[in-house]
Structures are given as C-alpha cells and as structure tokens.
C-alpha cells in the first residue's frame, strides 16, 4: 500500500441499473417511496420519471473501493452529497460510472475520492471514503 500516490486511479467501473435494480433495492432497504418505481407518481411531483434511490447510488458507488480493499482494510467513513438524480428509463435503464482516486494519504489510512457520473454529469458531490490500510 505504501506505493500509493495522490491522484492514482484505483478503480473505474460502470454499473447498469434497470427498474428491477430499484425494486430490489426498495425491498432490501425498506425505502418504498413510489417515485422509485412509478412514473405516474414521479411525474405528479414534477420529476421527469422514476429515479434511482440516492442511497442506492451511494451504495453502489463505494463498491469499487470495497473490491479494491479486499481484506486489507475497511471503510472508516463514507459521505456523499446528492446533487443530481439518476433517471432510470423503463427500457434502457441507466448506466452509472464510478472513478475512484486517491485523494489524501495519512498513516494507515487513505481518502478515496469518487467521481460518480450519469449521462456525463456528476450525480454525487463530495463523495469520499476514508479507508484503513493494513
């Protein structure tokens, strides 16, 4: 781990979400807000259509970091700001891209900065995971 440098890209990954992904997350998390599975309700509150749960995007975005860490460390702190919604088309779904970069290094820990985009726009702000490194 000592060969890490600030700015290193440790992972880059794409995730494809479909409406089933959202229904599965609703069940697993207990968040049954219908704007995440019904277009009519989403539109009635002024949204263009069904959106992914912000917490689903947050949950997926840290996975490349978890995979990179394997058994060498754990996530000590993870934060995001929800800046733009991820609109999930009923037929085509939505593809979210995650780029994970080393943002800071300290003794036995690192801050990993995540850039999370959908349709070339950032959907999470200040997305940072602080991890311990064995």
């Amino acid at each position, binding site marked *: 781990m000592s060969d890490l440098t600030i700015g290193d890209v440790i992972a880059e990954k794409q*995730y494809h979400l479909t409406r089933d*992904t959202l229904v*599965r*997350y609703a*069940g*697993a*998390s*207990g*968040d049954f807000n219908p704007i995440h599975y019904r277009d009519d309700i989403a539109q009635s*509150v002024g949204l263009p259509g069904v959106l992914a749960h*912000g*917490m*689903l995007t*947050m*949950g*997926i975005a*840290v*996975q490349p970091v*978890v*995979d990179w860490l*394997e*058994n060498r460390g*754990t*996530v*000590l*702190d*993870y*934060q*995001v*700001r*929800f800046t733009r919604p991820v609109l999930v088309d009923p037929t085509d779904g939505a593809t979210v891209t995650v780029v994970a970069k080393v943002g800071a290094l300290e003794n036995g820990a690192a801050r990993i900065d995540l850039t999370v985009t959908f349709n070339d726009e950032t959907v999470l702000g*200040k997305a940072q*995971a602080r991890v311990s490194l064995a």
Partner: protein
Amino acid sequence: MPVNPELQGRVFPPTAPYLVGREKVREFARAVLATSPLNHDPAAASAAGYSDIVAPPTFPVVVQEATLAQLLAEPDAGIDFTRVVHGDQRFTYTRPIVAGDELTATLAVTSIKSLGGHSMVTAESTIVDAGGAHVVTAISTLVVRGDE
C-alpha cells in the same frame, strides 16, 4: 408549516434492537451490486477475522430508517414527508457491521438551518451493539422544501 426550530438538540428514545441476519446482509449486498466474498461467504469472512459475513458500508440505512420514522412522526416537528429531499449522507464507523450484531440506534437532531425558504435538518443516528459499544454513526441532512 415550517420546521420547528426547537427540534434542534432533541434526542429521541433508542429504537428497539435490530438483529442483523445473514440473509438480510446478503439481500442488501445483492441490492447494491456488492460482489465481495466478505459480504456473502461466511468462510471468506471468517478467514479475514470476522465472526460472520460483513455488511456493505451503507447497510446502516436499514437501521437508521426507524429513527427517521421517529423524526417524521414527531407531532410538533412540522416536517411534511412529501417535501423532504435527501441532501447528504455520511457513515462514520468504529467497526464494520457483521451478521449477528444486535444494533440499537439513538437519534439526535443536531442542527436546523433555514436556507432560501427551505429548512435543512441534520439528523444523527448513533448505532451501538448489544454491549453498548459504538459501531457506526449515520448522519443525514434532509432538505425540507418551503411553500412555493
């Protein structure tokens, strides 16, 4: 109705203990597209020194749900659920959650701010294990939109 500023500093009673089941962790892990063996395979988790499979980093949201329900149900809170947008979220860990943990969450409203007609409510859920030791704190900022 605006959010009641007197909510700031209010601490709620602890939630009923939540027993983290192995299949619940697997279900949640599948839902966030987590593929790490530590999230699915007890043998892999055990080899890494854990007593059972490890929950993904955002799993505390399942436990936090009960505390946010307390907040929205508070009669004098003035929080209209249909106007709530999730602003930001943070998890600060002492140790990872593993299957078998019995977790209790205590909610505190740490800040209420007004910003351009909207209210920003920061809700902090401190989650401890059966022995009372800190596991993780889940911090949510909810944006409550004002009347348009």
